[in-house]
């Protein structure tokens, strides 16, 4: 019998990430629907915003603490979380499907003999049993999956479950000092991409394709992205040509994104590109070819020259931001 849900939260540089609060919100919701206990566990050193967990619905937080946990260590985090999961006998572990979540979830799965359901975009417990829905074939299809093992590890796609802060209750925080963690595999350095927001985490993405004609014209894309507080994305030929870094590639062999707004500039909308972005809430396409397949997924389109439309769009946005 299932008794407890454990939300396994991610911190980086001493801060819980937005996806961590999405995980808290989802865990709290599932717990109330299934009538289970719920706790959060976070591995790290000092964590500045740990108290915020309370307002997203979890009142008990276990902080697995060690100075060496400031940076991620898959072996160290795995062992610390496994020990706690075993002690608390949790049946469901919930993580965000981030780089860290994708690394840690399967390691925990093997340790706990729990199946893994990754990258869920819906979790339905209305029948009393848990059924998770996740995209396959880069979102061209979805599957409904049920666990067969007694314990289960689930990751949820970032940006899909928007957490709603309620009240402002402070959670009960139990700090556990972890002595001599297993640092066999550990991050020794983090090279930050200069102040740029990552496409996978952005709520607004402005993406440019081959029709931008050259790297110098991405100034327009960057300016619009900056104005909107969003990130720059790119199609594969743009990355292959070296105009933009691979970390910005959207699509089947790049990143899968689901922002609130995706603006595709001079991108044709090949099936591999659509696979990475068609679950965006709103899609805008600017393309001079009105037959381009991108228009079949766009909510709003302008069938014109990107070099004429983008500057005007930038001016219009400046006006409303002023």
């Amino acid at each position, binding site marked *: 019998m299932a008794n407890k849900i454990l939300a396994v939260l991610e911190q980086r540089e001493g801060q819980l990430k937005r996806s961590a609060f999405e995980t808290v919100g989802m865990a709290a919701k599932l717990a109330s629907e299934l009538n289970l206990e719920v706790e959060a566990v976070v591995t790290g050193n000092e964590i500045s915003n740990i108290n915020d967990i309370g307002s997203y619905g979890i009142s008990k937080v276990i902080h697995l603490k060690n100075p060496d946990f400031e940076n*991620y260590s*898959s072996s160290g985090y795995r062992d610390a979380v496994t020990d706690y999961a075993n002690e608390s006998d949790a049946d469901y572990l919930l993580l965000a499907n981030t780089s860290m979540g994708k690394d840690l979830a399967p390691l925990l799965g093997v340790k706990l003999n729990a199946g893994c359901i*990754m990258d869920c975009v819906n979790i339905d417990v209305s029948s009393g049993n848990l059924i998770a829905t996740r995209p396959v*074939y880069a979102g061209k299809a979805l599957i409904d999956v049920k666990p*067969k093992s007694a314990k289960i590890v689930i990751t949820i796609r970032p940006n899909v479950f928007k957490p709603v802060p309620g009240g402002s209750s402070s959670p009960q925080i139990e700090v556990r000092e972890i002595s001599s963690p297993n640092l066999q*595999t550990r991050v020794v350095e983090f090279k930050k991409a200069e102040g740029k927001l990552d496409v996978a985490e952005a709520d607004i993405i402005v993406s440019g394709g081959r029709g931008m004609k050259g790297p110098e014209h991405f100034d327009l894309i960057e300016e619009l992205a900056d104005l909107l507080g969003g990130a720059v994305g790119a199609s594969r030929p743009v990355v292959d040509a070296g105009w933009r870094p691979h970390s910005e590639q959207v699509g089947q062999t790049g990143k899968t994104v689901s922002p609130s707004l995706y603006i595709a500039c001079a991108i044709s909308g090949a099936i591999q590109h659509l696979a990475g972005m068609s679950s965006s809430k709103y899609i805008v396409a600017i393309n001079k070819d009105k037959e381009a397949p991108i228009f079949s997924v766009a909510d709003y389109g302008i069938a014109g020259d990107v070099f004429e439309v983008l500057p005007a769009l930038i001016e219009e946005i400046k006006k409303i931001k002023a």
Partner: protein
Amino acid sequence: MKIAVCVSHVPDTATKVKVSSDGVSIDPTGVTYIINPYDEYAVEEALSTKEKLGNNSEVVVISVGSDKSKETIRKALAMGADSGVLLKDDNPRDSFAVAKALSEEIKAQGCELVFCGKQSVDYDNTITGQLVAEMLGYSCIPVIVEFNLEGNKITAEREIEGGREIVETVLPAVLTAQKGLNEPRYASLRGIMTAKKKTIEEKPAADAESLTEVLKMHLPPPKKAGRILGTDSSAVPELVSLLREEAKVL
């Protein structure tokens, strides 16, 4: 050193997905299958590591699947891998059961270094390499774009949100390959000819139970075609007001 590469046989990324009559998988009619794109980077990294390590190293390619997966094994052999193993199972398995079969074989072969792709572009779980590592008690660094081996010490760079992590670990280990790690070589004509002559060892995949079950596959609701607002910048004010008032995203 013996290096293993795990490869999956997947539908071409241009495939239009239709659900098969069983209701839980895709209809394979007319679908072309290829080596999983990320696994090409894995094969390349294994081959170039072998070349650096010298003569007494070898690369073995392993796949879990039906007879059809031999095509993908053959592709890796043509690139230069030394031998291939098909762990045969005609029934679907989840990543856990796939990883179980792979790890048994890797153990039997005594491979200390294992390369996988970061993701199989069919089920997109992104976990098989990590599962294999954990089942074997090996270290693991997923999603790498740079790899360095010195003695038994590994330094790798992996791509994460907002930057790159430099990660250190030790052999034995499993690494999963991300685009950017290398440029996969083309199979030479000679490679293709020799690959035809190499035998692919076939054995039943180790028994293992799936820990998850697919109840249903369905297609996402079709997006209703949107509106083309105009053909030049005169449509911009309307676009911005729709984004603010209708979509409420600005």
